[in-house]
């Protein structure tokens, strides 16, 4: 009962309430409140994440698993960042309330927390992101091979778009006058045609499908037909 019926009731009532609230100005505030609650809940849940992170890494270190030194690095980085951030160590005082320590800006670049962000987190995340330039090249080399008609369409389109993205496109077909009958052979015109008509059509249909998928999934959840999230223990 507490494990299965109550969650189903919570889900159904909260779902229906928010659905109905979209149609009346008097319940608009409700959605706002619920969205605020979720944010609070997500912030509280960080404690859960931190607990898990500490447990896993402490276990690695204490049992001297191979590579435990990396767990120590993670742990040290986590604890250090958390400490300077939570305590607002070295925070720049708020000019209007310099006497209230915790009103200061902990994320200012000159505060330790801001320093960690600017000189560690930013280079690490953006370089990780930048690895995609390599992967996009290796994926193109490996996957864009004309194995069948569908593959030819995929690689052909990518090829045309890549060509038209650069000055090479202008160089190859830029001599065709824009107002001539053959202007449709210009790469920039072809690119526009592909993106505006074909890609738009494809994406539209995908969006329509997704909308129906979301609607059906939400309905299954709200009406308690899909209960896979529930514990069976």
């Amino acid at each position: 009962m507490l494990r299965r019926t109550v969650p189903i009731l919570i889900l159904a009532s909260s779902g229906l309430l928010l659905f109905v609230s979209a149609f009346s100005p008097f319940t608009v505030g409700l959605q706002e409140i619920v969205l605020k609650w979720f944010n609070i809940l997500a912030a509280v849940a960080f404690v859960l994440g931190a607990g898990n992170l500490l447990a896993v890494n402490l276990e690695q270190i204490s049992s001297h698993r191979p590579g435990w030194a990396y767990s120590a690095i993670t742990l040290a980085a986590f604890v250090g960042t958390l400490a300077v951030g939570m305590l607002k160590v070295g925070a720049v005082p708020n000019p209007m309330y310099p006497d209230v320590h915790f009103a200061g800006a902990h994320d200012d670049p000159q505060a330790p927390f801001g320093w960690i962000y600017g000189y560690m987190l930013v280079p690490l995340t953006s370089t990780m992101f930048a690895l995609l330039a390599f992967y996009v090249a290796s994926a193109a080399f490996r996957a864009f091979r004309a194995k069948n008609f569908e593959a030819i369409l995929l690689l052909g389109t990518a090829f045309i778009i890549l060509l038209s993205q650069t000055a090479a496109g202008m160089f190859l077909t830029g001599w065709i006058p824009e107002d001539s009958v053959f202007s449709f052979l210009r790469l920039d015109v072809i690119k526009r045609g592909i993106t505006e008509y074909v890609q738009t059509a494809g994406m539209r249909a995908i969006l329509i499908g997704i909308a129906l998928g979301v609607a059906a999934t939400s309905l299954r959840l709200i009406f308690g037909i899909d209960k896979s999230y529930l514990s069976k223990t």
Partner: protein
Amino acid sequence: MTTKNTEQTPDGIRGFFVRLGRLDRRWIFLAMGLSIAVPILLGLRFPEVPSPMARATFDAVEDLPEGSLVLLSFDFDPASKAELQPMANALVHHCAAKGHKIVFMALWPLGKQMADQAIKDVLLEFHGGKYTYGTDYVKLGFKAGNEGVIKLMTTNLAEAFPTDAAGTALSNLPLVADIRDLDSFKLVSTVSAGYPGAKEWVQFGRESMKSDAQLTAGSTGVQASQLFPYYPKQLNGLLVAVKGAAEYETLVTEKYPVDRNAGRLEQGRIRMGPQLVAHLLMIALIVLGNIAMIASRGTQGGAR
């Protein structure tokens, strides 16, 4: 990673292509790295021809009466800065050159810092004289809640942002004191790298804006295809990736040139040089991959 099976590999040029097909991907990585690094060091640049989408974005800002109230939402973080900061800079410069009143906000936690940078590098640098805080521009800062923030703004701005980024109540800032909701803005422009961003602005914000108000987006290349369906009705203008930034920069700086530090409004165009070489590499890779496939298909007698 390269497997050695010399028995099956024919000699000569065909053999070369067959081996090429099984190329260790690290050589591709190296080629990609060089094709970007070398042009940076040589400083290659090419002219830009603005596309209709860039022109539409330009017009959305340009056609507003001088001094209109605009909302710029910085929905990205440093990870997408290279693509989006040039757009943001050009956008801020354009709005300021037109004398629009600007409200800055962010749906991404780090978007606030991106906005601060654009304000420092462009707004105060080129237009510092005529822009004072509180009356000509306001920084609302970041608010957690993704599309929820947009929804709140459609009904009550002060509830979404009780204070500005520095903690001053909105009622003490003349520019925003009387703004009730999103309806008051003549232009909303999001520079967006993903969720929450341009799509959420269209889904949840557009509804509540005046029908003649403009909504434009600057987008990373990756989410652009998701936004095409919204252009030109729900999104009045759309800038896609560095190329969009470079085109928009061209339009803006042609009309409103600056006398110093022009490099801050050329970032997009400078970054298009390595783009060309890298794109040509990608094209070459696709061609080589297919030649290799055809070559190896012959050797195996169509067994596959």
